[in-house]
């Protein structure tokens, strides 16, 4: 028990002002407050992954296994179909599928991040962005399990990473910043307009075939416009090239940095505008 005087003296320090005029600034403050609550959302994300595989023998390794089977099947079918060397095709497809899955499940799960947490949002005073960060953390944990496949493929084909691997770190940071704003934008728009989740799911399905995830640009005589202007291609490029021992193209760095600047700014504006209404929309 805390004695009353102690409570009172602590109270004097904490003054909260809730005002209609301050709503947009609270949107920005909400993002920062949410980010600072990393002990909460990282724990909840870990708990969710653990709970999903409770009582199963392999636990979260099921994630690795099911994606591994998918990668192996795709890799062998494509290398056979196009008469390519499996030692080249398989690492390419493995990385492509692992990062494609991280990016698109962040966006797809983003569409339901506020709607699905309605009871939570309306009854627990927490920054709204906590739910977005928790979803991103969960997908990162799943991604870490999937990266076991990449390591397994390297070991299996006896491939050694070279100095270009260093580019992976800035590349992955850029990749995640873009994934984060896309997920948040999807979350805001989906909460207000309930057709958006369906639209996004369908667009992603089509873009999957237009993006060199499992097929390679080398099989095309020249670069079509749907690749040159495809943000998903450039996002994959900055993480895939380093992991395959190549330096990513300068054009991809430029595209991704530009995309991050514009996307983060636009999403921030959107969040500031929508922030005060999200609890009513869910």
């Amino acid at each position, binding site marked *: 028990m805390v004695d*009353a005087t102690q409570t*009172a003296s602590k109270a004097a320090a904490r003054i909260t002002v*809730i005002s209609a005029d301050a709503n947009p600034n*609270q949107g920005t403050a909400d993002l920062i407050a949410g980010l600072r609550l990393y002990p909460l959302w990282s*724990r909840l994300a870990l708990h969710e992954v653990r709970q999903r595989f409770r009582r199963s023998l392999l636990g979260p390794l099921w994630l690795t296994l099911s994606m591994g089977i998918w990668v192996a099947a795709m890799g062998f079918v494509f290398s056979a179909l196009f008469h390519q060397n499996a030692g080249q095709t398989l690492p390419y497809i493995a990385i492509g599928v692992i990062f494609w899955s991280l990016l698109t499940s962040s966006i797809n799960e983003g569409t339901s991040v506020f709607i699905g947490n309605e009871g939570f949002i309306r*009854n*627990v005073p927490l920054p709204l962005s906590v739910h977005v960060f928790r979803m991103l953390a969960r997908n990162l944990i799943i991604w870490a399990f999937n990266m076991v496949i990449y390591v397994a493929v390297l070991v299996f084909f006896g491939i050694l990473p070279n100095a270009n691997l260093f580019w992976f770190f800035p590349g992955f940071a850029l990749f995640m910043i873009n994934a984060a704003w896309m997920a948040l934008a999807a979350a805001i728009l989906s909460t207000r307009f309930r057709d958006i989740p369906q639209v996004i799911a369908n667009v992603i399905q089509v873009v999957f075939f237009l993006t060199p995830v499992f097929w390679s640009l080398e099989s095309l005589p020249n670069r079509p416009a749907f690749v040159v202007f495809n943000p998903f291609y450039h996002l994959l490029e900055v993480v895939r090239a380093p992991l395959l021992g190549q330096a990513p193209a300068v054009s991809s760095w430029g595209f991704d940095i530009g995309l991050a600047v514009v996307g983060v700014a636009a999403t921030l504006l959107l969040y500031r505008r929508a922030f005060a209404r999200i609890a*009513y929309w869910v």
Partner: protein
Amino acid sequence: MAHISIRDLSVEFAIYGTNARSLKNTVLAQATGGRVMAGARDVVAVRALDHLNLEIADGDRVGLVGHNGSGKTTLLRVLAGIYKPVGGQVTIEGRVGTLLDPSAGMDSEATGLQNIYIRGYILGMSRQEIEANLPDIAAFTDLGDFLALPVKTYSAGMAARLTFAISTAPKADILLIDEGIGAGDAAFQEKAQRRIEGVFARTRIVLLASHAESLITRFCNRRLTLERGEVVGDVPLAQAPVPVD
């Protein structure tokens, strides 16, 4: 000193995707509920709180009464920072704790002990705080070894004891409570009321929204009546222990 000052507070809900006209007619035909206004296009705006002014001083135990839809829960959610106002200003001095939905964030697949941690973190407690409160929470629930089992194996009464014990653990200067405190059998009700008394004794301001007159007369020293998002009655109640400094 804890204090709440509410000036000109207005809250509006926009309801989308309904036929504005027919809903408007339906809602206006009823005596209860917020004011329904025809907004632009197909959007119906419900004004849940209408230019509300209120001062709540240190030591106040406010019982919020009113019909369903009179704005009780909305007011608590605004004070909790969940609903943002469309007009006006609220100034709150002190740390706010909430008991709006005691089961929000609970995971029925997880064990009782895991839920104590999850719910504790969600309520803003640190690991140390949770661990310090653990013996007290465990003792109150009377669950013993059941704490190591998933919550879905509990009876309704056992689950209620657990959620209640966790939710009443954090310390706050201002506590917002919505409806149904306590569930379960008679013996538990009595125990729950004693725990609530303890919580009230260490909290500077309490807002309790309830339809149960007995709860309000027992715990509150002020009764606020809300109707259509406005304060229509504000009377002091005879007694209720006020914390001593």
